[in-house]
């Protein structure tokens, strides 16, 4: 027992000493084979958020993307790109390093990890519509497509303004209840992109009365508010299920069959969110 | 004089368990504590190895106040064989017995060859050495009892305390145990204090008897001198006959309850 203990302790000390020694040399090492010029724009981009992926393609730089998040599906070209992980949860670091990226777009908290490997990172913190503009412009700047980015943002603002002008004419704004995902009562509140979309399209989001961007509403609250419009995401409850909910037959939206199912990308932080505003406006005011 | 108990009383919250307990124990004696249930016998034992602190009075161990002793020091001098012991653990007999050496070790010392020798001797004494690698879960009641005794002996104490050691043993093992105890006192200079429920065994194997009843000491002394029919009637509520056998041993024969 004593002999084994001594060997054990000595070998641990030996190994730890050497490993700590080699760590001291690794700290600031540049892992890329062939360093990139600071003046060049990133050529090998890994994007872990579907929004950034879409934006980069929109900016015409889609061919520079070498890795995307596992749930990427737009544009169709992403199916050919390697799937790496996601912006929440974990990423396979070895896969990342094997792609030799010079830019990683990920969540704010993930940037710490990648910085350790000397890779340039951009952490996303998008919440509102203004954040979406910011995201497009900042990504554009980083990859050297600033003018294209500005064009996109300008076009977005133009389309949105058209809708805003149209809906201004109406005094009475419909009350809107937006249900996200599969959870009953989970909605978007002030400070969320969805809220901006609804309000710009001329609706009044009942979720905006509560605290936080992702509040959960109670059944009584929704029924009491009696929304004129219900918007539900494509992976959420079906329209029939909603109509059958207890006491919901009292709600105006159910009575008038004003329930809209929307695709997920409507509320993602991409230029396509403008489609949401246009579709919402149409559903609020033009469709019967 | 090994132990001196001086006017000790013990209360548990407001329940008085012991009152004005005073007695002395000399070395190389076997003393039995007898009395009806609930008289406070186990409580008294617990006070002797500082598991409980008396509310009034003091106990002296080797002329030093028990309060001044650390638990470890007491453990080097007093060994306990309790009434019940957990044996649902995967200890081998040897591992369980060697625990008796714990009070003799400081933080960073290991069990030595001598420790294992002491354990071995005591296991042989209690006839369990052949079981030394068996797990204690596989032992019979009697074997387990002997293990606890071996462990207590391995503390190399000067005093052994027993709480109802004969409770779970059959007649043969009861006698074997008590004869072993007598041998220990004679050969190993040990003093034994035991709580017994069987008066006859107490009489047969003790030098002195302490009768504890209703929180107080009723009598304390050599069996022949202190035992008589009245005392037993008052304390135990039983009418008895006291005879002497052919071999000169005192025998208490219960006749009827009163």
């Amino acid at each position, binding site marked *: 027992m004593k002999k*084994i203990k001594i060997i*054990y302790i000595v070998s641990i000390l*030996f*190994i730890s000493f*050497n*490993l*700590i020694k*080699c*760590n001291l040399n*690794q700290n600031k090492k540049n892992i890329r*084979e062939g360093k990139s010029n600071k003046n060049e724009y990133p050529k090998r981009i890994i994007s872990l958020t579907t929004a950034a992926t879409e934006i980069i393609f929109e900016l015409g730089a889609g061919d520079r993307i070498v890795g995307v998040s*596992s749930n990427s599906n737009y544009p169709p070209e992403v199916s050919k790109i390697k799937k*790496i992980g996601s912006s*929440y*949860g*974990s990423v*396979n*670091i*070895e*896969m990342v*390093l*094997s792609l030799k990226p010079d830019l990683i777009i990920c*969540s*704010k*908290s993930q940037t*710490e990890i990648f910085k350790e*490997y000397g890779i340039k990172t951009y952490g996303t913190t998008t919440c509102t519509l203004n954040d979406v503009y910011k995201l497009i412009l900042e990504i554009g700047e980083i990859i050297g497509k600033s003018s294209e980015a500005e064009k996109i943002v300008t076009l977005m603002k133009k389309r949105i303004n058209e809708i805003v002008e149209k809906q201004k004419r109406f005094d009475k704004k419909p009350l809107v209840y937006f249900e996200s995902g599969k959870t009953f009562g989970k909605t978007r509140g002030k400070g969320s992109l969805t809220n901006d979309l609804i309000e710009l399209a001329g609706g009044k989001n009942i979720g905006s009365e509560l605290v*936080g*961007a*992702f*509040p959960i509403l109670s059944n009584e609250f929704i029924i009491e508010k009696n929304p004129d419009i219900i918007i539900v995401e494509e992976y959420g409850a079906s329209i029939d299920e909603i109509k059958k909910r207890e006491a919901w037959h009292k709600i105006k939206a159910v009575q008038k069959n004003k329930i809209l199912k929307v695709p997920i990308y409507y509320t993602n932080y991409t230029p396509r969110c403008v489609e949401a505003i246009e579709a919402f406006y149409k559903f609020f005011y033009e469709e019967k | 004089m090994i132990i001196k108990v001086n006017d000790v009383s013990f209360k548990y919250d407001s329940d008085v368990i012991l009152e004005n307990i005073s007695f002395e124990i000399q070395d190389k004696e076997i003393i039995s504590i007898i009395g009806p249930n609930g008289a406070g016998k186990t409580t008294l034992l617990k006070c002797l*190895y*500082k*598991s409980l602190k008396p509310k009034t009075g003091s106990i002296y161990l080797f002329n030093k106040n028990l309060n001044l002793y*650390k*638990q*470890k020091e*007491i*453990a*080097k001098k007093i060994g*306990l064989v*309790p009434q*019940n*012991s*957990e044996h*649902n*653990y*995967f*200890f*081998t007999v040897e*591992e369980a017995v060697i*625990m008796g050496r*714990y*009070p003799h*070790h400081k*933080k960073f010392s290991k069990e030595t060859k001598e420790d294992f020798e002491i354990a071995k001797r005591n296991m042989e004494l209690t006839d369990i050495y052949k079981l030394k*690698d068996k797990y204690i*879960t*596989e032992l019979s009641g009697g074997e387990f009892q002997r293990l606890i005794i071996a462990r207590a002996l391995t*503390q190399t104490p000067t005093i052994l305390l027993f709480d109802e050691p004969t409770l779970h043993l059959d007649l043969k093992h009861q006698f074997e145990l008590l004869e072993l105890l007598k041998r220990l006192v004679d050969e190993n200079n040990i003093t034994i204090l035991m709580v017994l429920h069987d008066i006859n065994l107490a009489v047969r194997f003790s030098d002195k008897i302490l009768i504890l009843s209703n929180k107080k000491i009723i009598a304390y002394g050599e069996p022949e001198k202190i035992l008589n029919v009245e005392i037993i009637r008052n304390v135990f509520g039983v009418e008895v006959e006291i005879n002497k056998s052919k071999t000169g041993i005192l025998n208490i024969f219960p006749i009827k309850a009163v």
Partner: protein
Amino acid sequence: MKKNKIIIIELLFIILIIVFFISIFQGYSNITYKEVIKLLLNKIGFYNNANLPEYVETIIIIVRLPRIILAILIGAALAVSGCVMQGIFRNVMAGPYTTGIASGASFGAALFINFGFSLKFVTAGAFLFSIFTAFFVYLLAVKNSYLQKERLILSGMVISLFFSSLVSFIQYLSSDPNLREIIFWIMGGFWKANWHSVKIVLPIILILIILLNTYYRELNALLLSEEEAKSLGINCKKVRMIILIFSSLLTASAVSVSGIIAFIGLICPHIMRLIIGSDNKYLLIASALAGSILLLITDTLSRSIVYPVEIPVGILTSLLGVPFFIFLLKRHKKSNQIL
């Protein structure tokens, strides 16, 4: 018999080394065994003509090695902590999280994540709140300056529930990205392992495990009844308190770095008890080694079964650990409430 136990421990040690090497060879990048060996020998001081591409060094030394070392350390920490908790409480179901540390750590992490702090602060926050929770639980459990076991378990449960609901509340208020981050933190995992964490956690865990090992006598005696422990010279109150403090520190260190990994602390001591017995002289080390081996295997599996997905470690630990434990239990027929 004693020799057998020592052989078992030596065997565990050898298994650990084998698993270490398997793990270090395992990974997405195409690195051959030869390259790995060359690199390791180079790092220890031999074989200076290595000539290896840079990425090999990066992958092995920066990506895989800290993760492996962390898994070993944390597996050992959780197993030892669980072992001593089971001993002090004389309860089969006790484990490293019995005193509510898990929920306290979750709360600390959730709070700091929600405020947007960096990883280092989240770790510190988790640690801080673990200790605070443990302290709070002790306070609740002390009555008449006497720490009762049953009260401790109860107050641990109560405080756990309290902090869990606080965590739910924070989750409710968080943005979606933060929410996912919190959930992922709580599930536990090593994908963020780096040398920084290793440097912080290594000395703490090693020292605490060594310290707890010196208490093997007290731990053994505490398994007996209170009276027997006292008669063997153990100051039960003091010893329990010390061991609780060490165990809490151990758990807190582990949890603040890797999140809440379940089952290791509960299962490994039980498994080793059935193999090596209850004597803490051997059991503590054996549990530590078993914990390291189990966690290392599951972490390596979690990052190499499916690419690029990483299966949360906690799921794998229960998948592996529970059936094995059932198997052992069935073999050992006399087993009810055994410690």
